[in-house]
């Protein structure tokens, strides 16, 4: 029996190109930001988001009708989309900004995602084609702002489940049972679709992109959009005053005995 059209799920996975986590971050000489002429890769939390979407498809088969990756960034962000496609996304959307443009801020990103969802859902031929689940990283490791998912849910008026460590989709009931990472344990919440999920580290361990899938990814469609197409102004609303390195740690010293230790602690006003 074919599932009824409304029970199909369309997943949108926003991904960000970020400085790779293994790279040692260096502040630029002008102290306006960091040296970005280093290796980049997909934000690790977003990688978890792509992996989760692919796992949902492996579990729910045809019920997951589509997995779309989307990124906002310079031309090099295309690599990040290719990775998402190689991991198993079906198609991708690239909102291209100039290579010299500053990194978009969360509100602009959330508005862009809203615009894309609204546009795609307006074009949809039926309920079964509408985007009803957004899975994205809980934060990007470059700016660590961690608010895009929440802003998107607010703008859309959708349910939100942040810091997810487990997802169970019940497509019949149009519900998702999410386990969230909270202080001291996990919290289970039941959410109605449509839904925004942000991923935490324990949700899954992403796979390697296999060669056959990398080759297939080269043929998957990538739609290009401009900031005008989505109607969002990417001018920063935040001003970066100064970026500096944390003070270097001063090495410790050895003391010969307890008395000397106590004397030093007293000198430092600690005892």
């Amino acid at each position: 029996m074919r599932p009824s059209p409304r029970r199909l799920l369309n997943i949108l996975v926003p991904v960000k190109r970020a400085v790779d986590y293994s790279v040692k971050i260096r502040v630029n000489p002008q102290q306006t930001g960091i040296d970005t002429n280093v290796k980049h890769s997909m934000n690790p939390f977003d990688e978890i988001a792509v992996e989760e979407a692919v796992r949902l498809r492996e579990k729910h088969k045809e019920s997951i009708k589509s997995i779309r990756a989307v990124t906002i960034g310079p031309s090099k962000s295309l690599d990040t989309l290719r990775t998402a496609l190689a991991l198993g996304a079906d198609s991708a959307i690239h909102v291209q900004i100039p290579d010299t443009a500053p990194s978009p801020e969360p509100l602009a990103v959330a508005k862009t995602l809203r615009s894309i969802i609204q546009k795609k859902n307006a074009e949809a031929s039926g309920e079964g084609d509408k985007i009803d689940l957004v899975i994205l990283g809980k934060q990007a490791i470059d700016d660590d702002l961690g608010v895009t998912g929440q802003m998107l849910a607010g703008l859309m008026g959708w349910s939100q489940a942040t810091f997810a460590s487990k997802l169970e989709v019940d497509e019949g009931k149009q519900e998702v049972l999410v386990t969230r990472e909270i202080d001291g344990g996990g919290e289970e919440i039941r959410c109605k679709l449509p839904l925004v999920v942000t991923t935490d580290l324990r949700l899954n361990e992403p796979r390697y992109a296999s060669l056959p899938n990398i080759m297939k990814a080269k043929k998957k469609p990538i739609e290009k959009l401009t900031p005008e197409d989505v109607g969002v102004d990417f001018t920063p609303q935040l001003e970066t005053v100064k970026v500096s390195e944390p003070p270097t740690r001063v090495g410790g010293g050895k003391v010969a005995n307890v008395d000397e230790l106590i004397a030093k602690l007293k000198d430092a006003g600690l005892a």
Partner: protein
Amino acid sequence: MLVSRSCAKRLLASAGRAARYSSTGTSQLNSVTEQDIEYFSKILPKTSIISTLAPISSPSDELNSFNSDWMGRFHGRSTTVLKPKTTRQVSEILKWCNERRIGVVPQGGNTGLVGGSVPVHDEVIISLSNMNNVRNYDPVSGVLVADAGCILQSLTDYVAPHNHIMPIDLGAKGSCHIGGNVATNAGGLRLLRYGSLHGSVLGLEVVLPDGSILDQLTTLRKDNTGYDLKQLFIGAEGTLGVITGVSILTPPQPQASNNVILSLPSFDNVLPLYQTVKRQLSEILSAFEFIDRTAYNLAVKHGQGRALPESETVGAECFILVETSGGRREHDSEKLLDLLESLLGADKPLINSGVLSQSPAEFSSLWALREGVTEAVSKEGKAYKYDISVPLASFKQVVDDTREHLRSKGLLHDKAVKYVLGYGHVGDGNLHLNIVADAYLPEITDALEPYIYEVVASHRGSISAEHGIGAMKTHALHYSKSDVSIELMKKIKAVFDPKGIMNPGKVLE
């Protein structure tokens, strides 16, 4: 021949315990006495001497790590470790030891695999670990001059900001010393690209056994003025003198690196694959490493890097890791993707599948699967390691034959040999044959030797491709070197070290 072989067995059965200096013309070496310690205390500060003898009287467990190799296979009984800070101090120590006929073992990071850096008896250990300064670096020519005790990784970190790398890289980089690398002519993972240390070492400073200092620490790339003496010390394993300084050429850092692990249905595909990869990647190919299925499974079992998805490993008999390094990311990626496309799209594909790293983290993770085999093997049990050069085509045959040989001896079971595995540098014709056993047993040793050496000799291979001879393989040297060669080596040894104090019992019997 017969005599030397039975000797050999005895030596191995006792794993370095006995082997009192035999035929290098040194009938007798003396043990360190309290008077010697008194003299050493005049040359060195107290903190640079560890000795169980008075007046230092260190607890004996402080010497344990110097007296044993990291695998726990070779054990010496040295009473004294000296840690000089300067070449002058090394010179004075050697002069004294030479006069007193005390055996000397130079020791770097002690990461060797053939017992070359631990005493066979109670020789003095000279640890170079306190000689760890970079003396000079020229970022234009890339020539680095450093003390012998510099750790390879710290040199890598030193030249990194100048956009250079060390021409040598190996699993033990976090502990091994550059002096030890040179003394053992270590090979490692970059040999395919940057050649051996015989090419990249430009000069050496060596203290000879009589205390004289041979200063050949030049930074010249071209210097055809007579015999190239430094070459003798590269790979001499400390039997001719103590290397105290190294001048080495560092290549520019590649601007882009990629790696990919390919799974192969059959070992027969390795050679055609190597040809194809060499042709298509040409100058950007920087490593072509072979891991057989057993080695891969062990690496995964012991958590050395994230495993490939099962869909990519089903039916794979072995794996190949290919690394590229070049000057431009787009150019390299395009070449690599073209290669992979043609490999996957071929009528009779050489590969089943594979994975391509997508980030620096995945790049390291893929390498960890290859580099971690050594560690995984030692976690799994007691390892018999053979590092041999044989023709590429016989890699698998050697591994399979060895396994069958052990099976026929009834030694392939839980309580004896657990695994026989092979991995190594296909590009260099260098196979690491490892036998993982439950415990070191004399009957396993007897089954393996001279069996493996005879197999190697039948292929005109080398019984030690990059690990050296050390104490482990002295008896087997004749499988790879003719009598004429060995005789000449002994004459050279006698010229540099007439009293035979330098690293006795190593390389030459």
